[in-house]
């Protein structure tokens, strides 16, 4: 049982790390702001949640796990909200999505 939890937490940590890096590459490589927001906003929350979940499994029950749960809760509230506010502000500020480039580009965050 302990080994399963351990292996699962490793999987979570690694997946989280991979998502983080892919988000980082995305924020660097994508052509315009909204696609970058898409890359960052989606991966960011999931990556954080996965890594923290992995840590939670390593920690076992206790105050540490509860604190980690709070951080996950907090991040999953604030991350998307910040991304949403950012997209709105950018649209409001006159930044238009890059529509003509390709058909899969119009990014909704």
């Amino acid at each position, binding site marked *: 049982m302990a080994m399963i939890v351990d292996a699962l937490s490793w999987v979570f940590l690694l997946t989280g790390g991979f998502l983080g890096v892919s988000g980082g590459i995305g924020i660097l490589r994508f052509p315009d702001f909204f696609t970058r927001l898409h890359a960052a906003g989606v991966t960011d929350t999931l990556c954080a949640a996965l890594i923290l979940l992995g840590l939670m499994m390593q920690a076992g029950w206790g105050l540490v796990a509860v604190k980690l749960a709070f951080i996950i809760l*907090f991040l999953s*509230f*604030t991350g998307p*909200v910040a991304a*949403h*506010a950012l997209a*709105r*502000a950018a649209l*409001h500020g006159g930044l238009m999505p890059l529509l003509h480039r390709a058909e899969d580009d119009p990014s909704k965050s």
Partner: protein
Amino acid sequence: MLLSFLAITTIAVVRLRDLFAVVMLFGIFSLLSAAIFVTLDAVDVAFTEAAVGAGISTVLMLATLTLTTRTESPPRHGTLLPLLVVCVTGGALVYGTLDMPRFGDPQAPIHQHVAPRYLQDSPAEIGLPNVVTSVLASYRGYDTLGEVTVIFTAGAGVLMLLGAIRRRTACCDDTGKGGSAVNHNLVLRVVAKILIPFVLLFALYVQFHGDFGPGGGFQAGVIFAAAFILYTLIFGLAAARAVASPGVLRVLSALGVLLFAGVGLAGIFAGGDFLDYGVLASHPVAGQHLGILLIELGVGTTVAAVMIMIFYLFAGRTR
């Protein structure tokens, strides 16, 4: 850790650009330095730097930027001379470090003097696990009282500078608010409503848990202020003023300092020295606990009140 350092240096180099970007980079800079403090075992410091450097000062700088110009005018005369001065000073300092003990050396002089005493005796004398708190509040209580007074004075100074001319901006203050997209953003409002109570609760936890883990009055005060800043940002200045009016804040900021000093005086009246908490209760350790709790409360009150007050003043100018 070395990587983070490297990143910092690049930031420091690249930061010479338009002011808005400078402030954004400064936010990153604070976050990075706080992460470095964590790796250097200074968890309390990281706590404070996170809340203060990344939070409050970035917000204040942004407020200033909206009041002044966004870009820096390029013409500067003679960058060569300052560069020379800086290089010479830096060279001298680097030369000075050659004599310094190596990083992390346990035999360095700094670790031989008072620190071992704090580490060894404070469990018996104060009885708190967090040595930083016991040094801050008890052994170095005078210093901390001085710091709190400095903060109070700074708050009074900002009040003098920015609080005076309210009449001209007062008209816009009422009409111009509530308009922007952030204010109308339903998602933000709802989430903020959910989050703010938890933030306040967390501030209280930090305040009273500071004896056992990282935390204490300074950090709790700043977090408390951060909650109010969030409220002000989303619901507008008038709403925040209705919750915590500037008058109340002024009284509170003074009250915190007075509480701190009052605990010190109580020590005198109880037969000990100024800021000697051992005499406040029947048992010295219990007295220390009580004293530290009270002065941390004083610190927290002052810091929170002054920070909120400063933010109100800056925000009041912005409108």
